[in-house]
């Protein structure tokens, strides 16, 4: 019991009065085996984008998306009557001044269709399948709030009210694209980042994601864009 009281109060002292320094872990070797991390969302009427990156030992020197990108992977996406090998592609992140690589395809994703993903990388094969059958809900209203409180604390946000189908277990994903000019900073951890990759007055977007999230009341929820 004493421990948490100590922690709580010492936290204040530590923050204000402690001495801090970066330390290295060069001598410590952790038995960590690199793993492939695959993520991707298929949106109806959009071409597929699949992100492949390698996880690394925590203190590994490789840090950027380009360095961590799983090159030489064979990424195959199959749909009704077709199959295509996705090819490496990238998009420039103006906010962070770097390229974000991924694998992309040519065929548009269709609502109601089933898809199989097959990734072969360094002798291992990974597969997944899905059916694009989640109904798009109707957005009843959109409202901006400067003070929203949830388990992450308080922040601004957008409250969407949607018509939630009764009797169906749904998963919602909320994505909010902020249009930011170079006088503004990111709302989260990048707030100290100076943007050098946009021209003056050129706006750019960053994306916030939350999901899954609480459905506040029946038939009220936030929903994807």
């Amino acid at each position, binding site marked *: 019991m004493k421990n948490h009281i100590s*922690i709580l109060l*010492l936290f204040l002292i530590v923050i204000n009065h402690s*001495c801090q*320094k970066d330390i290295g*872990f060069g001598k410590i070797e952790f038995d960590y085996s690199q793993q492939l991390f695959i993520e991707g969302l298929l949106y109806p009427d959009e071409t597929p984008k699949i992100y492949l*990156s390698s*996880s690394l030992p925590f203190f590994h020197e490789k840090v950027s998306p380009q360095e961590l990108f799983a090159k030489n992977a064979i990424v195959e996406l199959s749909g009704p009557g077709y199959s295509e090998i996705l090819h490496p592609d990238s998009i420039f992140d103006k906010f*962070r001044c770097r390229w974000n690589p991924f694998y992309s395809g040519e065929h548009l994703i269709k609502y109601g269709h089933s898809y199989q993903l097959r990734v072969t990388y360094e002798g291992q094969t990974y597969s997944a399948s899905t059916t694009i059958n989640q109904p798009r809900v109707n957005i009843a209203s959109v409202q901006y709030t400067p*003070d929203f409180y949830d*388990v992450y604390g308080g922040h601004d946000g957008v409250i969407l009210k949607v018509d939630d189908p009764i009797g169906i277990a749904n998963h919602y994903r909320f994505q909010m694209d902020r249009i930011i000019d170079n006088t503004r900073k990111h709302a989260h951890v990048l707030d100290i980042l100076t943007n050098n990759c946009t021209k003056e007055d050129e706006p750019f977007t960053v994306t916030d994601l939350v999901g899954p999230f609480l459905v506040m009341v029946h038939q009220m929820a936030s929903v994807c864009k």
Partner: protein
Amino acid sequence: MENLSAYPLLTKIPNKIIRNQILRIVFILIPLSLIQAQRNFAVSGIVSDGSSGEVLIGANISVDQNTSGTSTNNYGFYSISVPAGDSVILVLSYLGFQSARITVNLKQNLQLNVQMNLSSNELETITVTADQNDDNVNRPQMGTIEIPTNMIKDLPAILGEQDILKVIQLLPGVQAGNEGTTGFFVRGGNADQNLVQLDEAIVYNPNHLFGLFSSFNTRAINNVTLIKGGFPAQYGGRLSSILDINMKEGNNKRWEVEGGIGMISSQITVEGPIIQDKVSLIVSARRTYFDWLIKPFLPQSIKTNYRFYDLNAKINWRLSDKDHLFISTFRGSDDALYSQDNIEYNIFFGNQTGTLRWNHIFGPRLFLSNSIILNKYDQNVAALQDNSFSRALSNIRDISGKSEFHYYPNRNHKINFGIQYYNHRFRSLGDSNAQSSKVPISEINKDSIPEKTFNELALFLNDEIKFNEIFSSSLGIRLPAFVEKDASYYQIEPRMSFKLQLSPGTSIKTSYTLMNQFLHLIPSSTAAVPTDIWIPSSRKTRPQQSQQLAIGLFKNYHNNRLETSIEVYYKKMENQVLFKEGNQLIKTLDVDEFLTYGKGWSYGTEIFLKKKTGRFTGWAAYTLSWTYQRFDQLNFGKKFPVRYDRRHDLSLVGTYDLSKKCTFSGTFVYSSGNTFTVPGGRINIAQGGSLFEGNYFVYQSRNNARLNPFHRLNLSVSYKSQTSLFRKKFSSECNLSIYNIYSRQNPYFIYFRVDPITDKPKARQVSLLPIIPSISYNFKF
């Protein structure tokens, strides 16, 4: 209903003949020894300090030069058998006091109360008594350390506050908690496995000011004993240690005032006779002025009012030569408010205890102590930060009673037996939710929180038997029971210690103890919010249980001026409790579904060298130990070291009397770093994927790294003087202490982050306490 049996212990002894021999020894030799009692008379009484009347606990009483005598119990009572008709010399000794030699010629039992005197030259006195005191070698009990309270005041102090728990941390087998705090861990046990009791009342949180100071005012303490193994049967309820603290009884000769002025707090103790030699009183109080001192230095945006106090009081009433009544109470609390911008903390925690004890001497061989004890612990910690609110509330109330008989049938037996009862009432609440920082923290009605009550009952019997000059033992059994509405546990706890005397100054001891604990402190799995709470055992959360085996070699040198020991122990702990992964806060006492259960084990070697006489006194303590836990649902079922699994712990403590007025002292500690968890890997998520962009940590195993080693040197110098004030002797002492003299940046904790610009991961070490000089002034008149 649960049953554990002691019989498996005996049945595991492979040889049936040996097993039967053990039983034969127990059942034949004990009655034989009792018969011997008929040929002896008993000398019994109370041993006390002649200048104050304070009882002397652990004073040695022997017949002639026979060192295998007896010692006074926690109430100063002794009883020793001597042959009828012989003229014998009783030798009484106690560290720091002149030895007393009393010739007795017994034709009947004799009640002999002895008042021992402090020497005018303390150094000479210590030399005299040292020749007699080899209790550490002679008694069968092991794993027990008496803390020299008179030495504490000369040791270096942080912020001018000497502290008993800081001294405990310097003993072998004891590992200190976070730097600067009073937390301690004994032989691999968790902090909740230490029973800290003041005049037999449990003190659940013996801390002030983030744990920088303990709640115990050293000037109100008479005696401190730490038991970490070989527990006698009269002690129970915790797995790892008993810290038994006895308050002074108050000077029954004359009124005295003693005080101390420190950097952030001051204290005063008043004691004296209400009725000379009959009723005495001691009142000791301490309060911080930290809140007043810090106020001018704080910016206006910060409001804080941290304050703590403690108050000890005891009335000691000698009703007759055979009856003694004590009433003691302790109150102490910390109360703090901190607010700054969107941060608000409300912190309150405090202990209250009350002990009513009646001691009765039935005769020269039988002593009874009866106690009724009330203790309360309240904690209410609430935090509101960044619109996130959390609260941990704990409310404990115990009513307990204890009757303990001390029976001395002859010089070869010392039997303790009795009964102990607790009625516990617990209320706990943990909560966390979103709340605007603009809304102040609200009070909570404690009565609205469901309470849980349960009862503990224990019967105990312990016999310290001296079979001959070579072999002696302490055999005991404790029968604790836990009774609650939905679950009951009835346990059997065998306790045994054996001593083999190799030579007058050398012995080998071994002990086996089984302990049960019906309370669990559930530690938080996060460091940012207050979530530790006490819970009782339940149908699913079974009692914690430990078995400890230890063996040690004890040897004294130079007429017992130098004590040495080496102890090896192995302890295993069952039914250890932690949160499952991902669970932290709990709203009620019904937390079983969030918990996971495992076991722990610890083993190690402890080396202790203690020089207790002469100009230079002190000790060196070294512990080599390993402590692990294993939970099926944590760390992929693999064992992991506990946070305080330190391979090496070294403490050097020294005090040098340069003259009668000037004393130097120092402490040096070195320990391996605490373990902590380092993420094994990381996954970088770039913008555009399905998750938040950023770095995700991959944790592979618990406590897979160690902080840097910890070491620190503290030094102090004390200057004593004596003058006369209003025709009374006025003693004063000025103490200058320097904490962490070479300002070592010891690791407090390490946190990890990924640089948002470069994406490079970093580990940052946070160090807390640099060099801290402090001065204090103490006086007595």
